[in-house]
């Protein structure tokens, strides 16, 4: 049977919501079909089903889905300025992945508290004929603004940001107040501030600086994201660990280098060639990377 993505994704949301409900775990379907239903994005095919899971229930929900043949995709060792916040599950009988988030980057609060804020304002939506809990439209806008800010060099995300700016500009006074109240309560207002300021909803000055906000700003402002993540990891690691971090930055495990260079041949020589290509690309981009980090730090210190 050939299941298409536009059939599989709503079914996947329905499946996870059903299994979570049976286990007493709170989950919210986010992005994809939810945004289209809330008028925040045109109808388009999603490649995965994104759900935000109560952090306390993440392990149990993952175990329940694994009982049904879903398997967690192995993560990569490449570091991230923002901690790992989701698990991807795949199933051989399904064309879409499940992306289970126990935290959404940009909500600069304890993940459980941020989830409670989202849950307390939830709405519902029928997906594949099953009632699914979803964020309120204002909370969905916040999620999309946070999402669009990450890696803003990608054309798709830039389009997403432009679209969200148009939506923000179209809000009436009551909707603006609702959105800003949620942004404050969920700890996302500072991470969203550059976008909210562009839309004229808040002043551009940061009111509540924090180390989490610094990391967030570094991530969204710096160029050449991969190298910036490694530099951040190196900068924040204890001195005794730095040689190991540096070695890992220079020499990725075989699985990861082959994922980055899928056309590399099978032998050891081809593997060495792929490593050299990656290092060459990193060195060529080094001046740009350093400018990106310095720029981000300078802006944060203003």
């Amino acid at each position: 049977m050939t299941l298409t993505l536009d059939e599989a994704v709503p079914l996947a949301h329905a499946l996870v919501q059903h299994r979570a409900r049976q286990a007493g775990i709170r989950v919210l379907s986010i992005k994809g079909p939810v945004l289209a239903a809330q008028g925040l994005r045109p109808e388009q095919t999603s490649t995965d089903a994104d759900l935000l899971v109560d952090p306390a229930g993440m392990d149990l929900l993952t175990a329940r889905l694994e009982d049904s043949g879903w398997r967690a995709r192995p993560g990569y060792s490449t570091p991230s300025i923002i901690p790992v916040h989701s698990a991807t599950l795949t199933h051989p009988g399904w064309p879409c992945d499940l992306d289970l988030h126990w935290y959404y980057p940009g909500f600069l609060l304890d993940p459980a508290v941020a989830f409670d804020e989202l849950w307390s304002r939830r709405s519902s939506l029928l997906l594949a004929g099953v009632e699914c809990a979803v964020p309120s439209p204002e909370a969905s806008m916040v999620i999309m603004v946070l999402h669009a800010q990450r890696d803003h060099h990608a054309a798709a995300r830039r389009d997403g940001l432009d679209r969200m700016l148009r939506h923000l500009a179209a809000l009436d006074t009551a909707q603006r107040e609702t959105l800003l109240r949620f942004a404050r309560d969920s700890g996302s207002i500072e991470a969203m501030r550059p976008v909210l300021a562009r839309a004229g909803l808040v002043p551009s000055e940061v009111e509540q600086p924090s180390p989490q906000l610094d990391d967030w700003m570094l991530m969204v402002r710096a160029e050449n994201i991969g190298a910036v993540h490694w530099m951040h990891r190196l900068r924040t690691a204890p001195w005794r660990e730095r040689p190991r971090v540096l070695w890992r930055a220079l020499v990725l495990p075989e699985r990861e280098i082959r994922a980055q260079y899928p056309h590399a041949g099978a032998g050891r020589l081809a593997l060495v060639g792929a490593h050299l290509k990656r290092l060459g690309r990193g060195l060529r981009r080094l001046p740009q990377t350093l400018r990106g980090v310095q720029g981000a730090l300078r802006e944060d210190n203003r």
Partner: protein
Amino acid sequence: MSLVHAPSVAAVQVRDRRTVVLDLDARECLPRLLEGSAAAVWHAIDGRRRDHEVVAAVAREFEVPTDQIEVDVMRFLRELTEAGLLSEAP
């Protein structure tokens, strides 16, 4: 007896004459694709029609005599029921 889609079933219809159903309680969680007449049978089940009325509705849709499809449709209804996708309407 009237037939109804089982309460644990999710269903998606994106294209005409094609519906994907999934028993959310089934451990293996594999969707089942219904195409053509199978999809028509699925949509003819509305919680009010009895099995022979489902046969008649499908026959009308495909403009064929009822007795020409009755055996196949009844067999398919049994198959769906045994798979946990249909139940008796309350």
